[in-house]
């Protein structure tokens, strides 16, 4: 069951690559993501939503992730999007009748044009926002992103809070496995996934995990401060994460195309 859940909610992680999308500086890429998401919310026409979905597919293609990745990683998002559409289709009864179908003798399914369009738009907006964020995370090295944000003005204490969190995700995952093994060795049955066992697992795993985490935090604090962390209000960086002219140009072009395209399509249809 655990494996089933894992497959349903696949891990969101950076997938190294050397495509144009991967190589783009994290800051313009983040700004483009924000502008894209804003466009998804602002332009509510179905044609615009479809166009934005098409743009997204193109970028998935450029980044080498392909439709396989889209279907595999976003399966649950697609299913959720379909559910949103279904609710809209059933609940909105405006426009002209597209379809009438007797499911049972007493229940008749009617699909109205406004309901179908509203459902499609809602589904596309939902998918566009989630899938674009997935694309960003999958093609952006989190380390580079945080260093870029710090060099752009994010206080370095917040930046390193994020970096150390990322650093300790695999450590705590491993610790949790060891703790689970240690509790099982004491005769505590944690195999399987019944609700009772899940509750028991939380009870027996959480306390040792918190204690281990606190120990590591103590070590980490000593390690960082003994290397002058926090001595000055600023710090220097070995790698300069500067955005070059070409990348600014990509950002500007992308922004103009998204906004102009959105306005054009909204007015045309």
């Amino acid at each position: 069951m655990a494996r089933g859940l894992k497959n349903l909610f696949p891990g969101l992680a950076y997938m190294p690559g050397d495509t144009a999308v991967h190589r783009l500086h994290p800051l313009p890429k983040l700004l483009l993501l924000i502008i894209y998401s804003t466009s998804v919310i602002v332009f509510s026409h179905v044609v615009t939503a479809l166009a934005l979905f098409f743009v997204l597919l193109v970028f998935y293609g450029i980044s080498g992730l392909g439709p396989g990745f889209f279907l595999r990683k976003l399966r649950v998002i697609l299913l959720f999007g379909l559910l949103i559409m279904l609710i809209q289709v059933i609940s909105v009864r405006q426009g002209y009748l597209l379809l009438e179908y007797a499911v049972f003798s007493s229940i008749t399914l009617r699909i109205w044009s406004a309901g179908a369009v509203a459902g499609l738009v809602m589904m596309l907006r939902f998918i566009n926002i989630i899938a674009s964020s997935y694309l960003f995370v999958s093609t952006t090295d989190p380390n580079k992103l945080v260093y870029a944000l710090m060099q752009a003005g994010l206080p370095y204490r917040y930046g390193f809070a994020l970096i150390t969190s990322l650093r300790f995700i695999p450590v705590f995952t491993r610790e949790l496995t060891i703790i689970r093994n240690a509790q099982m060795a004491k005769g505590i049955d944690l195999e399987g996934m019944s609700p009772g066992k899940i509750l028991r697992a939380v009870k027996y795993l959480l306390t040792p995990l918190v204690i281990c985490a606190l120990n590591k935090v103590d070590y980490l604090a000593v390690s960082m401060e003994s290397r002058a962390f926090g001595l000055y209000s600023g710090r220097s960086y070995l790698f300069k994460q500067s955005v070059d002219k070409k990348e600014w140009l990509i950002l500007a072009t992308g922004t103009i195309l998204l906004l102009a395209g959105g306005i054009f399509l909204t007015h045309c249809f």
Partner: protein
Amino acid sequence: MNNQRQGVTEIDLPVVCVGGVTFKYEGSREPALSDINLRVDKGEFISITGGSGCGKSTLALCLAGFIPHHVGGEMSGSVIVNGMDSRQCPPQKLAGAIGLVQQDPEAQLCTLKVVDEVAFGPENLCLSREEIKDRVEWALGAVGSLHLRDREVYSLSGGEKQRIAIASVLAMKPALIILDEPTANLDPCGTTEVLQVIKKMEADTAVIIIEHRLRQLIPISNRLLVMDKGRIICDGEPGHVYKNYCSRQKYYFDFGYKTGEEESSNQSTTEERHSQANPVLSVRDLTVSCGGKRILEDINFDIHPGQITAVMGCNGSGKTTLLLSLLGINKLERGRIVYRSRDITAEKVSRRARHMGMVFQNPNHQIFENTVYREAALPSIMLFGGESAMNAGINSLLLEFDLLQYKEGIPFSLSLGEKKRLTLVSVLGYNPEMLLLDEPLIGQDYRRADIFWQAVLKHRSAGGMAVIVCHEPDFVRDFCNRILFLENGKLLLDSPVEEGFKLLEELGFKDYLPGSNVIGDLCYGQGS
């Protein structure tokens, strides 16, 4: 190197000058440090040893400025570091003068990439990009890790992580580097890697190394300090201090001393051979994979009555996985485990655990309950039910392991050594026939290691057996009957101890052999 370091000490001002420091932790009755006076000169190499809880790590925190700034308690006296009074300067300000490398290589690395980790300190000092780059290259070169420059931190081995931790401190160019048990969590290969780095450190950097295992440190140290109950009770030329003090105090377990009872351990090999025909546990073709990666492959061995079996091998060779597979926590891809003529391959963990009690490496992973007594009794209750029947037994074990006074106390407030004893008590409480001990000696001084030895010997004399993952060849030689040596998930050898060490020597695993007495060479050879 020794002479180089000694030559420098006499002409320079001290790097650190500690004057009458006493420190008491908040809520503690006894001081952790008492009237400490210490001078460390440029280029000196000082080894500090002593029993667990004697104040070694507290002294390190004091020198690095974390006491009095971050650790709660009362401090008197002064610590002057490169002319700066630690009471006036926070640790960050002392960072350029003192570097601290801690025991756990995993917890002290804070970035995702090796190059970022080594650059972290110089970046905090706001140095120029060129200077940072030079320092990173130099520090990585100094620890022989230039090839690791672009690696992800999580992908490094324990020894590599500790080398990077040392490099990240060296990049600060400190006048004094303090290493607090830097090899405690490493296998013999990793230990050798780290010690080679320490030996090659530049002669003008003073080094303080806190260690229980002194064998490889004595020849390269200028001074050996022994601490006890918060005081420096001995400070002098290493060979002399060891000869006149340490050997009598038996602080260390890597010099191979034997008690009468331990002698009987090896004698029992003969006895064991008589019982070869009737193994208690038989493992056949044991193969385990995890996440598509083969961890153990075609492992075959038997365990006979009264046998203490050592499992040795490098970190990642599959030792812990082997113990977990015996207990049923790791499922077998193929193979069979037979216990007392019964195939237990498909048996649940809770059923197997009645016969096999496992003590994990880090007691914090096992401890859960809110009183020491409940923690000690938990496995007995879980596995057999009914608390009253074992009440007397648990109490007598707590008494035997010097834990009865904490019976109603919170387990998490115990020291690491006490927690380790508690996890052993919780297993001995239900008297499983077979003990599975995963690196029980890590971070333990001689006295605490002795408690484990005696418990294992007593268990054997009562008819029990033990399988122990262990990195201490001297311990294996003195207490075990058999060696299983794993390499990359395969059983390289399964032999009686003496024969096993001969084979390991032939195979070139020199780090895994019981050591020659280096101190003897130093005291009676070149040193005297």
